[in-house]
Structure formats: structure tokens, C-alpha cells
């Protein structure tokens, strides 16, 4: 599976000049916990609900402070066509919960640890289903191949 196919949630992006209050309202309205920050087509950062609390509210920043004053930058990215398993290594090596997915350098979405867990649990469920059925309903005997006497 490609990295872009592992994305479960839509991505939302805003400009670096947008304010902390606007970012919070957009998160609330769109239901996402992280916004990509794009300067034109250029991905310059990611701002999360956690950033708004820790880097904004906790430091008593003005609600009209720009989001680029509290965003995480540079952004850890993964190419859209990369194998999804590559994301595991990137998460392991970086203290982040979300990766920006890029295609030819352009932002196309956000891949989160939650997305990987959901995909992983779906794969596990597919594996567990026949084992559970066997345990509950007993083994199905394989037919004996016909032999010539």
C-alpha cells in the first residue's frame, strides 16, 4: 500500500499569516487536529491543537498571533508513492505523530499514527477472522484427493 492510500482523514491547509484564533476555529469547524501551513504551494510547517495550547495559550500569546510563530518547522514528510511501511521507520526515528504527505514536493495530505493503527487493526481483523471461525465452528476437513486404485 502506498503512503497516500493510508490516509484516513482529509487534510486542511492555511497560510502562515493566519492567526492562532483562526487556526483554532478552523480546527473546530473542520474536525482536524493539525493544519498544514502553506506559503503559496510551499509547505512551511504544521500547526497542531497541541501547538496552540503549549506554544500559544501557555505562553500567553495574543489570539491574533500568526500561526507561523507557533508551528512546527521543518516538517517531517513522506512521498505519496512511498511504501506505507516506510512511515513506520520515519515515526520511529522522529518524535512526531503526523507526517506531511507530498507529491513531487507539493503537500497532498497528512498521515497520522492513528491512520497506521487503524490500517494495522483492519489487517489483524482479516487475519483473526478465519482463526476465530475455526475455533468456534471446528476444523473444516480438507477433501481427500481422488486416487486411482
Amino acid at each position: 500500500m502506498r503512503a497516500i492510500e493510508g490516509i484516513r482523514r482529509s487534510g486542511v491547509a492555511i497560510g502562515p499569516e493566519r492567526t492562532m484564533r483562526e487556526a483554532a476555529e478552523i480546527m473546530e469547524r473542520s474536525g482536524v487536529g493539525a493544519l498544514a501551513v502553506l506559503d503559496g504551494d510551499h509547505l512551511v510547517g504544521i500547526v497542531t491543537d497541541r501547538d496552540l495550547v503549549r506554544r500559544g495559550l501557555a505562553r500567553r500569546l495574543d489570539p491574533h498571533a500568526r500561526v507561523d510563530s507557533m508551528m512546527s518547522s521543518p516538517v517531517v514528510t513522506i512521498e505519496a508513492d512511498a511504501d506505507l511501511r516506510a512511515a513506520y521507520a520515519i515515526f520511529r526515528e522522529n518524535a512526531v505523530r503526523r507526517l506531511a504527505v507530498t507529491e513531487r514536493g507539493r503537500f497532498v495530505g497528512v498521515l497520522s499514527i492513528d491512520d497506521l493503527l487503524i490500517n494495522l487493526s483492519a489487517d489483524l481483523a482479516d487475519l483473526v477472522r478465519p482463526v476465530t471461525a475455526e475455533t468456534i465452528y471446528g476444523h473444516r476437513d480438507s477433501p481427500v484427493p481422488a486416487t486411482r486404485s
Partner: protein
Amino acid sequence: MHAAKGDRIIIRGHRVGEPDRDCEVLEVRGDDGGPPYVVRWGDSGHETLFFPGSDAALQHFDAADAGGARS
């Protein structure tokens, strides 16, 4: 996803009890109706760039149909 100006995008709630969200497509930035889209979020007036995921569904609005939308 292939959208046009005026279409509505519905984003399903991700948890039990979480409401669906919706936004209006103001501008299509991709080729052939593809993403990203400049959208406006409900009555908040906030405009953002939107990159639809598997949680998003498009609702086309037919200008000739005053009765409403079709999916």
C-alpha cells in the same frame, strides 16, 4: 474526487457522536476538477485549502434543480 465551484463536501464524523462537517467549494485548484480545493467552512466564513481523504464525500449541486442536491 472531481468537484466544481459551488459543490458541497461532507466530512463524516470520525467518532461515535461526532457530527458530520461540511464545506463549500469556492475554487478548484487541481486539474480536471481534482484537489486541492479552496473551501469555506459553513457559516464561520473561514476559507482554507482542502485535500479530501477517504472520509470526504462530494455533493454536487445542480443549478437547474431548485429542489436541492444530488450525491
